[in-house]
């Protein structure tokens, strides 16, 4: 079965281009603005979209994404609205993969079978659930794979060679390498270390490896993208959204094009990198 993610990464590989993966939080700062950004992301150079499912207790996230989650919840974010965003996006774009990213409790609370059916129906392609390591695969990973969704796992600097096969076993779509030990949007990764880590992961899998956490500028994006199959940027984009809000938390006039211009700069950085030598 070839998913939108598989097709997208195959196409990029054919073009010798690394993927630019963008993250925004659903419903941040409200439904309409979030949809406007979402719709504009592919045109601004985003190859794969991660859409954050807001949660009150985002334990692996830094201040920028924590704040975005709180803005979204304050504006009445629910799982239903997150899926409505995906559905509205899908109405105009049937190619760009969307991966939902977040924490397990809102999914568990909705009920896994119900969630998977609703996500699939809305046009979701994959899931990244931070607090579900391979030890808990029967919770969501296995049912998601059965339902035809990709389950993208995080590999980290603490994932050693002994553990890596277990982490990769049920991973599909791509592997998300977390470039630092830390939270989103914190330290900047060292390119040489990232390159070595990507090589290490590549010895265990034929899946594409995208790298994220801590990439803030087009230059960093380019450097990381040249060492991997893709670069993920989240906090910088979410931070740009925060910067566009007025005192009442509403986006200023012309906010979306300015945020998307930043996305384009980052995309240019990624796309100016030479793709890794294909193996």
């Amino acid at each position: 079965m070839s998913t939108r993610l598989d097709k997208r990464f195959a196409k990029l590989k054919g073009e010798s281009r690394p993927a630019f993966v963008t993250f925004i939080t659903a419903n941040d700062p409200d439904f309409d603005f979030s949809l406007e950004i979402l719709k504009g992301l592919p045109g601004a150079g985003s190859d794969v979209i991660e859409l954050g499912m807001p949660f009150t207790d985002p334990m692996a996230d830094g201040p920028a994404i924590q704040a975005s989650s709180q803005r979204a919840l304050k504006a009445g974010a629910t799982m239903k609205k997150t899926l409505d965003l995906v559905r509205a996006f899908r109405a105009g774009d049937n190619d760009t993969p969307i991966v939902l990213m977040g924490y397990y409790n809102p999914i568990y609370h909705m009920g896994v079978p119900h969630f998977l059916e609703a996500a699939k129906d809305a046009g979701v392609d994959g899931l990244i659930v931070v607090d579900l390591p391979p030890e808990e695969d029967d919770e969501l990973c296995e049912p998601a794979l059965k339902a035809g969704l990709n389950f993208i796992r995080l590999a980290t600097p603490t994932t050693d060679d002994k553990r890596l096969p277990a982490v990769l076993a049920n991973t599909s779509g791509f592997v998300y390498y977390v470039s630092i030990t830390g939270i989103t949007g914190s330290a900047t990764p060292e390119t040489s270390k990232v390159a070595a880590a990507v090589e290490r992961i590549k010895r265990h899998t034929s899946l594409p490896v995208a790298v994220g956490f801590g990439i803030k500028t087009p230059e960093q994006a380019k450097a990381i993208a040249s060492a991997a199959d893709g670069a993920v940027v989240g906090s910088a984009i979410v931070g740009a959204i925060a910067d566009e809000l007025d005192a009442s938390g509403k986006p200023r006039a012309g906010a979306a094009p300015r945020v998307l211009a930043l996305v384009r700069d980052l995309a240019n950085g990624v796309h100016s990198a030479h793709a890794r030598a294909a193996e």
Partner: protein
Amino acid sequence: MKKEEDVSASSKANSFRSGPDERGRFGIFGGRFVAETLMPLILDLEKAYDEAKNDPDFHAELAHLNTHYAGRPSPLYFAERLTEHLGGAKIYFKREELNHTGSHKINNCLGQIQLARRMGKTRIIAETGAGQHGVATATVCARFGLPCVVYMGATDVERQKPNVFRMKLLGAEVVPVTSGSGTLKDAMNEALRDWVTNVEDTYYLIGTVAGPHPYPAMVRDFQSVIGDETKKQMLEIEGRLPDSLVACIGGGSNAMGLFHPFLDDDGVEIIGVEAGGHGIETGEHSASILGGSPGVLHGNRTYLLQDGDGQILEGHSISAGLDYPGIGPEHSWLNDIGRVKYVSATDKEALAAFQLCSKVEGIIPALEPAHAIAHVTKIAPTLPKDHIMVVCLSGRGDKDVFSVAAHLGVTL
């Protein structure tokens, strides 16, 4: 259906004390719901704890510290005047408030600091709500010369100033947490963020029977000294086991410590008292079992306070130590299989019990165990005089004097 599975899983060993399983589960509860970065760390911790558990030297060192540093065993005291006052069951207090640092928290901290040292960790982090666990952690870090960072919600820093100063005196760095709502759950999130960033040298000293496996089982084991001593002392004093046990529950570590050694003693009724706040029906409480539903937070599946979309709600209680939207996973399991009965006491009832205990026993209890005493005042009068009841007096009330004065409208 799930309940039946749980029972059969535990009855394999024909015991309520055999959990958790190899996945860290008590029935459906518990588990290891953590980010991949932390997964290798908790596997290391599990291995180190298993080794320590089987090492007589580890137990000998801990016993020595318990005796000479913490002041164990704590007395099992016949609360004669409270018994007379209530006119029914014979009430004993397990005097955990007499431990060094003034609560049961030290039992767990001494155990975990020994483990951290064995593992070669050189920096300790912890979360705290009311500050009791923070003080106990800062204490053991001072004792062993290890740097200590305590995360505490900014709201709690403001309302628990004496404990904040105490931690600083003991050499700890107290970091106020402003993210989220600035209370205990946010402090725990921030401690997890620190841990995920400082994976090499840092040991996360969790203060209750919650978090990812092996914490719930490990903290329970270190706190079980409460129940083990109670059993022995009761046999010496009364020549038999008690008829009932009562303890307050936030995360549930003092309760689990008292309950666990008695779980297989059929004749012992066990009661956990949650914080009812303004009343369960008002929605403003910290009663995760009575007013919550199963969910996943902070590394484990357990009963949580949450809304219809799986977002975590703030707890409310007069006692900052019970003000947590979750509960240890083993309690959730013990509730579902029916071995332990969970009830609640309101802020008002706890406040009345706080004053009653002070007046008739000359013991100022912390607001947390005042919830347990509040339940005792409801049931003891209905029980026969030969019914023996043990209440865990988990902490002393000095820290609460100011807030109780405020609640009673007294200006100090």
